């Protein structure tokens, strides 16, 4: 049994951590948070140069041809530093959609650019208001022209193309739309985590090409979202760990009533509980990593488990990180709110916690029924 990353993967982690420590301090996060910048282009270019954007992209398409475990390692590091880069949108989602359902031509055209960070993709799926389900997708494609409004679209502002879900008679199908085409309008929208920008994309008879044969769009979406959920879970456990570390450090240094506040059980036990949820989430994320890296049949259960657990842990740790810091934790100057924003933003990305809870039990039920 080896539910752990390999030595090579751990070396990759150290490598990425060193790069991000140098190039992505919290001032870089704040530069995006406090401006209209869509992302930190320098950090993104650096990640491309390190070869990690293309970690899971085959060598024939310009990637490193490693695998999803390497991407998990990278995701955790991005989560730790709250990296303001569109890796989730462009790599976990857009690249995976193309690898999963794209034509040979689409792969040849887009994957090398995505791996090199020369193009950015995004997934335009949800249509506010309400939880994203097949029923509330109103965007359509007629004669290859897409019309509809997608919001929020993470990283839509900086993207070159979008994978767009459209309604058809049977459910969903997927289109690929270049965002500089006519009939496409991209507007920034404000969000609780402006270090991870959101957009509204309005399509009016925008030219598009199909992604996949159009029949099993909903199934493709589920499969890609499952894998992205595990990768986001790694971002979340990275963030949760960092929030826990920050809070622990503060509790050791900050004095009140003549003693370190970490010597008070109220604080000590709060931190212990954060450690508990971060540990559970990490173990569940490893289970998810195993599943998506081996293509195991239990991927849907493993992905939902990783996702629910990581969402809970990051929200919990980010929230109590502020509480441990007290008033200082509620200042703009301290980084606590960056994690709080990210934790609550990621909790909704790819669909809310409640939807993943439901999916987890639905999938366990199905697995159980098929086993019986």
């Amino acid at each position, binding site marked *: 049994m080896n539910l752990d990353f390999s030595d090579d993967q751990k070396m990759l982690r150290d490598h990425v951590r060193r790069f991000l420590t140098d190039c992505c301090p919290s001032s870089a996060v704040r530069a995006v948070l406090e401006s209209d910048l869509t992302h930190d282009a320098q950090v993104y270019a650096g990640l491309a140069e390190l070869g990690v954007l293309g970690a899971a992209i085959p060598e024939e398409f310009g990637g490193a041809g490693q695998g999803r475990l390497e991407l998990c390692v990278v995701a955790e590091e991005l989560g730790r530093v709250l990296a303001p880069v569109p890796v989730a949108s462009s790599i976990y989602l857009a690249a995976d959609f193309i690898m999963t359902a794209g034509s040979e031509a689409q792969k040849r055209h887009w994957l090398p650019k995505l791996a090199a960070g020369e193009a950015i993709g995004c997934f335009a799926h949800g249509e506010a208001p309400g*939880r994203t389900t097949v029923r509330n997708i109103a965007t359509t494609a007629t004669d290859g022209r897409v019309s509809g409004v997608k919001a929020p679209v993470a990283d839509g502002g900086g993207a070159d193309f979008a994978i767009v879900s459209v309604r058809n008679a049977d459910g969903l199908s997927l289109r690929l739309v270049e965002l500089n085409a006519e009939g496409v309008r991209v507007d920034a929208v*404000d969000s609780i985590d402006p270090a991870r920008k959101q957009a509204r994309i309005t399509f009016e008879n925008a030219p598009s090409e199909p992604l996949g044969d159009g029949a099993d769009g909903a199934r493709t979406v589920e499969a890609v979202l499952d894998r992205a959920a595990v990768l986001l879970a790694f971002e979340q456990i990275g963030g949760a760990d960092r929030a826990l570390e920050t809070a622990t450090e503060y509790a*050791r240094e900050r004095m009140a009533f003549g003693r370190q506040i970490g010597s008070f059980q109220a604080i000590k036990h709060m931190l212990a509980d954060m450690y508990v949820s971060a540990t559970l989430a990490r173990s569940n994320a490893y289970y998810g990593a195993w599943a998506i890296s081996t293509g195991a049949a239990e991927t849907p259960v493993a992905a939902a488990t990783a996702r629910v657990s990581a969402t809970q842990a990051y929200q919990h740790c980010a929230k109590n990180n502020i*509480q441990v810091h007290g008033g200082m934790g509620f200042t703009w100057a301290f980084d606590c709110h960056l994690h*709080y924003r990210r934790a*609550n933003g990621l909790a909704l990305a790819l669909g809310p916690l*409640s939807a993943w809870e439901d999916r987890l039990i639905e999938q366990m039920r199905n697995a159980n029924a098929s086993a019986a």
Partner: protein
Amino acid sequence: MDFDDTPEEAEFRKTARAWIAANAPKHLEPELKQAGFATSGITSMDPLVASREWQKKKYDAGWACLHWPKEYGGAAATPIQRVIWGQEEGVYAKLSSPFLIGQGMCGPTVMEWADEETKRRMLPPLASGEEIWCQLFSEPAAGSDLAGIRTRAEQQDNGDWIVNGQKIWTSGAHRAQYGLLIARTDPNVAKHKGLTMFFLDMRSEGVEVRPIKQANGDANFNEVFFTDVRIPDSQRLGRVGEGWRVSLTTLMNERLSIGSGMPTGFPELFDFCMNAEIDGRPAVDDPAVRSRLANFAVRASGLKYTGMRAISALSKGETPGPENSIGKLVAGSMMQELAMFALDVQGQAGVMTGDDAEARGRFQAMLLRSPATRIEGGSDEILRNIIGERVLGLPGDIRVDKDVAFNEIPTSGKG
């Protein structure tokens, strides 16, 4: 058991209601109704002017600081009359927000500790809204441990005090004329024994007010820096070294005023779930949503009727029990949890704020503001200590800083 007024209460309510109907700034009502957390919501005019106009009108007619003695600008009303006034004032009470700290905390402290001449001079303009006060207590290194403040006041030969140091979380300092200041006057004695309370003119030389940007992007609080600020000894409240005792008056009033009638967000959440849909069905019909709603409902209801039990005591001329101490503790964490849940119901779109968001971004704003509620005016942890010790009679925490000279208490956990 009933929710009815006594005849006297009904009479008072009728008078108050009639006066409010005749005098309230009705044109501001729509804006006030949309107000978010801790602001009056006025944008059609200078909100401070709007607040002052309403306060002055109330003052002139004898409705300001109702329960204060008449000679200090009040109406010597009973506690229950004050509650009834608050119920009748309704949304217009939001206009009082600039005066809350002054009238709710500083005023009572002055009333208990100042001499007669000072009270007659300082309290009426505070009641009328002409003068705004702020409370200069917290410091960067002294939050929950308020007695750990380091701002120094040193007495000169002429009796005046010279103050140096820094305060933080001072709400309204930028518009305040006066401030209630606790400072350390003797660092060589135990921490609670070396403190003294003053009030000072915020326009004094050497006072600098800087807004603090908060985690949610707002700047409702300030840092205040003191550089050789001179305060005459006549502006001392209580004896030298008695500042801790004086501060307890202020803090008791702070917790009372913050704790009562805390909003929880439940009515807004329920309303939202009646209208929002999950996969084509009303959210309120989803059993998982119902279970969460029910748990919020009983907490909101529990707080509401706990408040009514306190009012019932006041109505009978009794002192309310300790029940109200739970208000902020329950409401603070509930608001945070509730906001997270509301965003969850909104799905992926819950991440959007402002006009793009459902319910006009109310729950997103609540999510970002609520962490402060669990900290300000006594953190959750301090409140649990208070309930444990003062309500349940449990022993205090072990204190290592009690019989130690303040300047010998360690100040860093490092090394």
